[in-house]
């Protein structure tokens, strides 16, 4: 089966986050956070904002970002987003 994700970074280990990025059909940034309901309720907006801010700073659009959180701190989320974006941009450049 072909891997539909064009770039991913991180892991599902505790304290980490798995970030997967794929191209979107429209020129927007689609963010999806997957976490325990209690975490989503308390930190969902904050995580969404951190992801969006990091992606916008990299000036990348037309992507879907899926973040699978396992109780990661903010700096881990930001680092994994940056790494996944770097991989995504590199791959897009090769197309």
């Amino acid at each position, binding site marked *: 089966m072909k891997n539909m994700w064009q770039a991913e*970074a*991180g892991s599902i*280990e*505790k*304290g*980490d986050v798995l970030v997967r990025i794929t191209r979107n059909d429209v020129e927007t940034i689609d963010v999806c956070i997957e976490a325990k309901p209690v975490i989503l309720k308390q930190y969902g907006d904050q995580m969404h904002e951190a992801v969006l801010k990091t992606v916008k700073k990299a000036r990348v659009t037309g992507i879907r970002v899926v973040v699978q959180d396992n109780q*990661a*701190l*903010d*700096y*881990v989320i*930001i*680092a*994994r987003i*940056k*790494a996944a974006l*770097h*991989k995504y941009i590199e791959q897009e450049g090769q197309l």
Partner: protein
Amino acid sequence: MRKQLILNPNIPKDLMNADLMGAERVIFDLKTSVLSAQKEEARYLLKEAFSFLPYSGVELWIRLNEGTQGLADLEVLNEVRADGFILAATEVSEFITMYRQLPEESKVYIEMTNDTSVDIVKNLLTMADISIVGFYVEEADGL
């Protein structure tokens, strides 16, 4: 005897607890502890950890990769204020290129990698703008 710890900088839990493990020195090892496919992730995680985590009471060193991977390390980590950087003595021109991309006033330790390392170090020590603090030698059974 000083206690030092070598950690994989791609593990968030280890980064968070680096100054709580009782070591006087922690070496974040990008060279041999991190799988090739994960080096990019490790660089970004290390960079963010240095700016986010309030490390205290421990010396923090970074062991860089050789060659193009080493240059890629410094593209991401060129503003990280580590207490020391370990650079391999593989080739004079490569060493100088990496040295000049380090953050200003960084303490540099040379890793002796093979028989030619001594000659490379002798050559480097004749250069006025190269300042080396010490040497790093990895043995088969540890440091």
